[in-house]
């Protein structure tokens, strides 16, 4: 199936102190897909990220203080729902996600409600090792089971969601650690959305590197286990107070 020509696509970029790269990321997305709208959610940056994104021609939502990726993304999903977008694609601000895969992800929504751009699925050269690798293996294993399809990179921040998933995420997108990646997938699956992945090649980050020290990786493993365990047993939805605020 191909992408429906009439659907409106919103690219949401959660950005925290990414003034150095945000403009080139936006320009790249524009070059790859001139027809999509781009919303940068500035997560309380102190380095003028919002102004840089504004100058680059993107829509900019400025959070008054740092909420984390989960808060930034829920802002994006709420905006998309209110403005009537059909598809939301999340792309990292740091340029590690190649916008050339954007169309593929959106097309993939014909078969699923959420499509993840996965690093380990054949393409690319991203490699993790040690406890971090075990954590990723465990997360992938459990979520694959839940989803009923093979998922290899559930912590990827490169993903597309259709209207059905956007409606869920506009109300329930956890701000806690790993909530924006792992728990959000669990929420999607538990509300009956289907999840699939497509292989993408990730580029090395333009600025900054993921922490790879053994201690940090071990802490990551522990937190991943806790976050996943909680997500699985949590009486959904976790945030009952904000339930049902968003109506499509």
């Amino acid at each position, binding site marked *: 199936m191909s992408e429906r020509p*009439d659907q*409106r696509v919103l690219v949401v970029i959660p950005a925290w102190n990414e003034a150095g790269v945000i403009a080139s990321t936006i320009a790249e997305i524009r070059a790859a897909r001139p027809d999509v709208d781009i919303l940068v*959610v500035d997560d309380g940056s102190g380095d003028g990220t919002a102004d840089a994104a504004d100058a680059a021609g993107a*829509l*900019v*939502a*400025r*959070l*008054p*203080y740092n*909420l984390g990726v989960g*808060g930034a993304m*829920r*802002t994006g999903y*709420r*905006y998309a729902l*209110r*403005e*009537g*977008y*059909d598809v939301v694609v999340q792309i990292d601000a740091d340029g590690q996600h190649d916008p050339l895969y954007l169309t593929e992800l959106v097309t993939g929504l014909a078969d699923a409600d959420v499509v993840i751009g996965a690093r380990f699925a054949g393409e690319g050269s991203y490699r993790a090792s040690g406890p971090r690798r075990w954590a990723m293996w465990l997360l992938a294993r459990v979520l694959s089971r839940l989803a009923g399809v093979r998922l290899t990179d559930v912590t990827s921040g490169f993903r597309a969601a259709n*209207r059905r998933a956007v409606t869920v995420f506009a109300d329930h997108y956890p*701000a806690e650690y790993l909530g924006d990646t792992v728990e959000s997938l669990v929420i999607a699956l538990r509300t009956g959305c289907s999840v699939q992945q497509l292989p993408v090649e990730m580029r090395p980050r333009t600025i900054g590197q993921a922490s790879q020290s053994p201690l940090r990786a071990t802490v990551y493993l522990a937190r991943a286990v806790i976050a996943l365990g909680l997500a699985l047993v949590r009486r959904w939805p976790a*945030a009952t*107070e*904000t339930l049902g*605020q968003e109506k499509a």
Partner: protein
Amino acid sequence: MNSTFTLGLIGGAITLVVLFEMLRRQRLREKYAVIWVVVVAATLTLAIFPGLLSRAATALGVQVPANLLFFGAIMLLLVISIQLSYEIGRLEERTRTLAEEVALLRLQQESHRGDHPSHAPDAPDAPDGRGPHEVTEPPEEPGPTA
């Protein structure tokens, strides 16, 4: 008059005065003051009637009555701490929702200004939200609606 009695009385009195003063200055809400008033009342009761504690300790098989008191006090503080953690979590969730809402409203306001350049000059530059209070919504942009 033993020292336990005096200490309990003084501690209870000071706590009561502080609570009253905080309530009077509206620094403390009644719903949080209630629990502390109950704690003070219990402290004073035990200070005035130490026999109650000994009898409770005997009934529960605790050899040193003070240990029962410490256990009770620690459990109470633990429960109150958990209750406060819960309240903080709720507040964080609310402020998060508000922060997201603020960001979206600002974006909406800016896009309206951009759509209607004629309105821009008389709109005061008030990023803190004290802009013109419009009763009627400006016409929506002619974008496709789904």
